[in-house]
């Protein structure tokens, strides 16, 4: 993808970029600090005593309940808990999970890989599909392709993820009538996962349905943004010029219109990358995908304060970082932002 831009004057622009990036980074740090403070109080305000919740339905003596409170640091006054939380977090220590009794950072580390694999692949597929369809649809708005693809994407966009996921599971994992149940019903791999290339195939087979669900429900946004920016570009003079040069229609679209129309989509993609880390709680729950979304879901069910805090922090911080990055990248890509 080459982006045609006017060549900027070298030195002042770079200087400006650094200053711009520094300002954005400062803003991001401020946001992160606020998120840390808010996280602490947000999760303290949630109803319910975590120790009582942990003890639900099991035999615990009053002494043991008090012991648990001490273990979780809940017997200390709130200000003390807060100072402890902040100093700990600044050292990248997210505390120990109440339920799993292990460092939250380890729990996250064990699961972040599978989440990135699933949501990352889905993002790439959704973006590619959305951009491709959007560009074609916008090129000839009102065409049959446009109507068809836009309608389908919008229908999928409005379908509840849980419903679509379960439906795909019922049809393609269980098999209905002539449709065979080829895909596994759960997880990231078989218990007896083979080694080497067969193992990669095994994971791919497990990933197909969750990935399809994720792509289906989100690609519409890329399609629509891409479509509308292509529609904008079509009316520009340079397209007419390109036509006048006798270029093939496909080439004009691919080499002239699409690169210019990509800008808004790029911003959108970067903003979504931030959410990749958060995973897809629903999809992970349907397909028992061992990722962060599932961990977060478990944390809420317990409720496991430190685990919720940790995953929540990770998700918000990655969204903030990616938004900042999006701002900077946009600055590089689009000269108009620089003067603004």
């Amino acid at each position, binding site marked *: *993808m080459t982006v045609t831009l006017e060549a900027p004057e070298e030195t002042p622009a770079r200087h400006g970029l650094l200053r711009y990036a520094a300002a954005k980074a400062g803003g991001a740090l401020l946001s992160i600090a606020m998120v840390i403070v808010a996280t602490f109080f947000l999760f303290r305000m*949630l109803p*319910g005593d975590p120790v*009582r*919740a942990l*003890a*639900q*339905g099991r*035999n*615990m*003596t*009053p002494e043991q*309940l*008090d*012991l*648990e*409170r001490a*273990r979780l640091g809940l017997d200390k006054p709130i200000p003390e808990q807060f100072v402890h939380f902040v100093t700990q977090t600044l050292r990248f220590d997210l505390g120990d999970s109440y*339920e*799993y*009794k*292990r460092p939250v950072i380890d729990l996250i580390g064990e*699961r972040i890989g599978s989440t990135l694999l699933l949501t990352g692949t889905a993002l*790439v597929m959704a973006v*590619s*599909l959305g951009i*491709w369809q959007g560009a074609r649809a916008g090129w000839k708005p009102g065409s049959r392709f446009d109507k068809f693809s836009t309608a389908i994407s919008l229908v999928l966009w409005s379908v509840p993820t849980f419903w679509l996921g*379960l439906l795909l*599971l*019922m049809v393609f*994992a*269980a*098999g209905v009538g002539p449709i*065979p*149940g*080829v895909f596994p*019903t*759960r*997880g*990231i*791999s*078989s*218990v007896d996962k*083979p080694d080497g290339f*067969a193992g990669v*195939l095994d994971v*791919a*087979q497990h990933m*197909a349905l969750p990935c399809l669900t994720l792509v289906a429900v989100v690609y519409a946004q890329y399609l629509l943004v891409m479509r509308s920016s292509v529609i904008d570009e079509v009316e520009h003079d340079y397209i007419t010029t390109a036509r006048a040069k006798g270029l093939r229609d*496909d080439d004009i679209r691919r080499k002239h219109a699409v690169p210019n129309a990509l800008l808004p989509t790029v911003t959108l993609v970067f903003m979504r990358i931030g959410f990749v880390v958060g995973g897809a709680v629903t999809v*992970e729950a*349907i*397909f*028992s*995908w*061992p990722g962060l979304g*599932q*961990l977060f879901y*478990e944390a809420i*069910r317990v409720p496991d304060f430190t685990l919720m805090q940790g995953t929540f922090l990770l998700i918000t911080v990655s969204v903030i970082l990616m938004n900042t990055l999006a701002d900077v990248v946009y600055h590089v890509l689009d000269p108009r932002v620089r003067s603004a």
Partner: protein
Amino acid sequence: MKKLLAALAAMCLLAVLPGTAAAAEPAKKVIKIGVTQSVDSMNPFLAVRLVTGSIQRMIYGFLTVPDSKTLKPSPDLAESWTTSPDGLTWTFKIRQAKWSDGQPITADDAAWTFNKMMTDDGAKAGNGPAVANFASVTASGQDLTIKLKASQASMLDNPVPIMPKHVWEKIKDISRYDGEVYPTVGSGPYIAVEHKKDQFVRLEANPDYWQGRPKVDELQVIFYDNPAASIVGLKKGDIDLIGRLNPPDFESLTGDDNIVQWNTQGRRSSYLQINHGATTSDNKPIGDGHPALKDVRVRTALHYAIDKQKLVDEVQNGLAKPADGSIIPPLYKDFFWEATGDEKVTFDLAKANKILDDAGYKKGPDGVRTMPDGSRKLQFRFSIHTDTPIEDKLAEYLTGWFKEIGITLTTKRLDSSKFTEETGTTALFDIAISGWSVNPDPEEVLGTHLCSRRPTASGQGGGTESFYCDPQYEDLYLQQQKELDRPKRAEIIKKMEERLYTDAPVIALYYPNDLEGYRKDRIASITPIPEDKGLLYGGSGYWPFYTVQAVTAGESGGKDGGSSSGVIAGIAGGVPVLAIGGFLVMRRRQGAADERE
């Protein structure tokens, strides 16, 4: 872009092809158990979840294990035991057997396990209460001596797995140890060989198990985050057995010839918890319960206004037993008590109305009763969970019946942590739904209605299921603790159940059935616990999964057919993807050609 798309399409195609693993089916006999709870910790000192407890039972030996027929405590690692006349000193003879790494099992292992829990607060998270009454534990050769602070009849239902000292004493901080070392060193019928977090645990048969090697080679405990997916998994054959089903999921298994629907009595009782004047552990009133509920006549009238059979039929789809007893379900027939004769409360709205009339709760012009002094209407809140449709249905029926006796019931839906707080600590409720899964020794569930389990005013301590504090009940509890003769102890426990039934701090509604499903083309036989109409998964001990037998390769014609049809299906499913992939590759080539033009 198209390159990318083509690559992705190719990936999809690969994904559609069935894994080569399915083709090379090993000759091992493997049974796959589906569970809807993930393993919290493989360190038994820390783990609390049911699934983890079930796995511990397969990996480690315990002092005793419930007998597979009678559920009475029977020898496990302890082959025999004696008690001193005062009931305070117990001596267990530990079996001559070997850990799975070949080391001998001695009483020292057991003593180390208990002492660790008694001296290290970090080791109490899993089973702390089990050693709370221990004064000292010592070992000499194969003899283990436990001295108690007070007599405890439930001694033989000790839930602590005995750990190999030579492996675990090396761990410095047990409170942060994850126990993820494989193969585990244990003394049970299976050895854990692999654990993938939130995915599965793989257990292999222990060839040197003292009772003999299990009949299958491998057990896989496979986690589903979503019960609906686990049902699909069972029907498809991704798992062979799943327990703890709810009625709708259980019913959806009907009509599948390969699946056995397991429907027996369960270990749980569902009851209403009535705020009969909640107090803290220092006897100060707490919460905002309706004053009318302090009157046992009002509570009894409510009891008469509940049609338990109707609830079973409509709320539990018939898959439960109406409760004419209290908190111990009929599965435990030694301890189960059931009301008979005049004492038995049956659905009788006229009688309920009469009780309230006689007690002076007069109906107002709107048909709603008021307190005898006219101060307050009989309007109660019914606290239920937000995410359980079954409880909503229950609330509808109760509201209808209570209206007939001049009592207004409004439903209050709470998320689970708020629910636990309001019904267990702050007592901000009138009537709440509750339930308890009972162990073979019922001491634990009986203990949840003791005075000492009420929380302090600041919410410390706790563990009560009812805020109950009744001298008669307390007295009986102490008596049963001292009574080591099982039939005599059962009589005392039955009196406690009777007290709960007639005083009605809790009203038992029904005992939900144990609902499970397994594939008969994979599992040739499996023995429940107890053997007569018992549980497969989630029962006590290792019995079902020690006795489980797999269908041997020769008999499983259907299975092979299934996998080859899977291959055909895979190819059939792959064709369209292949076509799309091919199309995209072609397009890409054409595009490249265009560029060259």
